[in-house]
């Protein structure tokens, strides 16, 4: 009897220790990655990064202005496409489709899209934009990023609108407001913090995306705002500079990675802040 008790006790203690170790492993790698990004990133920080364009290969100096501007343009364009489509599709699910067969099928497909490897979406954007137009372009890059962002916005909008109580919806309908007005002026407003959370998470998701841009926006040594041609952007710069032999290029890759991580962290913190507001107003 004591043998069984001892064996059970030992199994329990050993398993608890192993589970603690497993948790420590995850946290350890997080801090290792964040620490090195901070260390090399801060060391590579230079004012010229924001004011000058990329120096030619082999030349000293720093500059990522073209890539920062390019990334902002790419993000802006993908928001312009992704937010309306995602918001309206999520609205359809929560306000028109409810839990019918069609709506649940759309939710299922959306969940599959949610975990789509970004490289596949990049190939898709290549096939529908780059190949017919004959040019690699920032436009194609934004299409790919928007497609990656849409499922996140659809899901969050759907969930957040479903959280809005039926009483205020019914009150508005009882006053004779047509459905579109009820949605835009009542339910959207009641769920705005949650919807904004979804958009922020979507933006965080696409911030460091590199693979789809390799098939679409490529990169550009020079400053360009023409969305029909290749455009410099931060993720592809990190990819190319990290593998380059030049010390200043590698340093710029770390600095760009650091800024990307900080940007993503700020977006996640903002998203969490808005999400907390959702819960308190309920």
């Amino acid at each position, binding site marked *: 009897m004591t043998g069984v008790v001892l064996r059970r006790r030992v199994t329990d203690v050993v398993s608890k220790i192993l589970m603690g170790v*497993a948790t420590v492993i995850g946290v350890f790698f997080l801090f290792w990655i964040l620490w090195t990004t901070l260390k090399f990133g801060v060391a590579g920080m230079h004012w010229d990064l924001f004011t000058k364009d990329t120096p030619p290969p082999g030349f000293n100096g720093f500059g990522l202005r073209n890539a920062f501007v390019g990334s902002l343009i790419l993000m802006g364009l993908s928001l312009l496409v992704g937010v309306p489509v*995602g918001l309206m599709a999520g609205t359809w699910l929560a306000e028109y489709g409810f839990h019918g067969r069609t709506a649940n099928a759309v939710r299922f497909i959306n969940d599959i899209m949610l975990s789509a490897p*970004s490289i596949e979406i990049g190939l898709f954007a290549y*096939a529908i934009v780059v190949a017919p137009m004959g040019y690699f372009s920032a436009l194609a890059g934004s299409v790919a990023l928007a497609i990656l962002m849409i499922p996140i916005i659809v899901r969050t909008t759907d969930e957040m609108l479903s959280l809005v109580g039926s009483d205020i919806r019914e009150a508005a309908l009882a006053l004779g407001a047509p459905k579109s*007005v009820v949605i835009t002026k009542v339910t959207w*407003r009641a769920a705005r913090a949650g919807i904004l959370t979804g958009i922020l998470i979507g933006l965080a998701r696409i911030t460091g995306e590199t693979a789809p841009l390799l098939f679409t926006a490529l990169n550009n040594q020079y400053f360009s705002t023409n969305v029909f041609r290749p455009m410099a952007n931060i993720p592809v710069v*990190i990819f190319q500079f990290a593998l380059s032999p030049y010390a200043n290029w590698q340093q710029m890759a770390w600095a760009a*990675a650091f800024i990307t991580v900080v940007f993503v962290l700020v977006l996640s913190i903002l998203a969490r802040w808005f999400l907390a507001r959702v819960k308190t107003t309920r």
Partner: protein
Amino acid sequence: MNDSGPAARTETQSALAGQRAAPGSRRFSGDAFFHAAAVLAAILASVTLFATVIAIAYDSWPSIQTFGVWRFLKSSEWNPVTQTFGAFPFIVGTLVSSAIAMILAVPISFGTAVFITEIAPFWIKRPVAGAIELLAGIPSIVYGLWGLLVFAPVFSEIEPWINRSIGNIPGIGLLFRGPPMGIGMLTAGIILAIMVLPYISSIMRDVFLVVPSSLRESAYAMGCTTWEVAWHIMLPYTRTAVTGGIFLGLGRALGETMAVTFVIGNSNMMSPSLLMPSATIPSVLANEFTEATTKLYLSSLIYLGLILIAITLVVRFLAVLLIRRLARGEGASA
């Protein structure tokens, strides 16, 4: 509900104002327009999945015609000079690197999930759960940069030791013999494991919370240890969704591009050793896509992408299906 009262009132008032502003006849066409826009957006969002497959299949058609299906899958010759292309080394590379990732990540995720839900004291739960979730937020390009410039040099110090210890075991040792370069299949698998860990463990954590406390507490009341509750009560109860979470992580690992491209070494020579450089479908796409000069070369690369889609679609479909089954059964969102 009390504090939503005044808010609701102002919302309704503004709704009323909105209605007054619109003339009667235009109100209804606006309503129809809004409905149509919502339907269109929903269609657009869902059709993308099918459009992806069709568009990529269309672009890979020249290669499908030249090499067929079976020949392309089993051929291991990838030679742009002779224009002969085969997918075998890349399929193997993709599957093996993801397998390594799952072997490492699944137990660690399970341990983390049980630690957070059952073992950790209250004050430690939230920061640890938050930290693990942060791992999911780090862009894959940063994993790649870190993997190549920080982890690989450290790992190349450990590799001679792996060579001497595991490498000397007959049979399995063959997998662990090779030059200590720091990059290769094993490094890619380890980086992938770190990347998919937060996805698997957060699904596990969510579904463990769905286990009814009556079940859990009955077991504890009978004198079960934490391990027994986790292994014999929680895991069997959530088996389907846990499997779904594992498939979700697998889907991520199979399609991951940037992190793998940095650390796998990019060689299309196959080797039994996991310490040797290799290549995956995403990594060869990332490396060679812009260099593909001929139509056949390009469409062969896209053909590789089509194979990747076929693999990941099955995995993702199973993942969503299995995770949803538990969610539906319990009426909770997992």
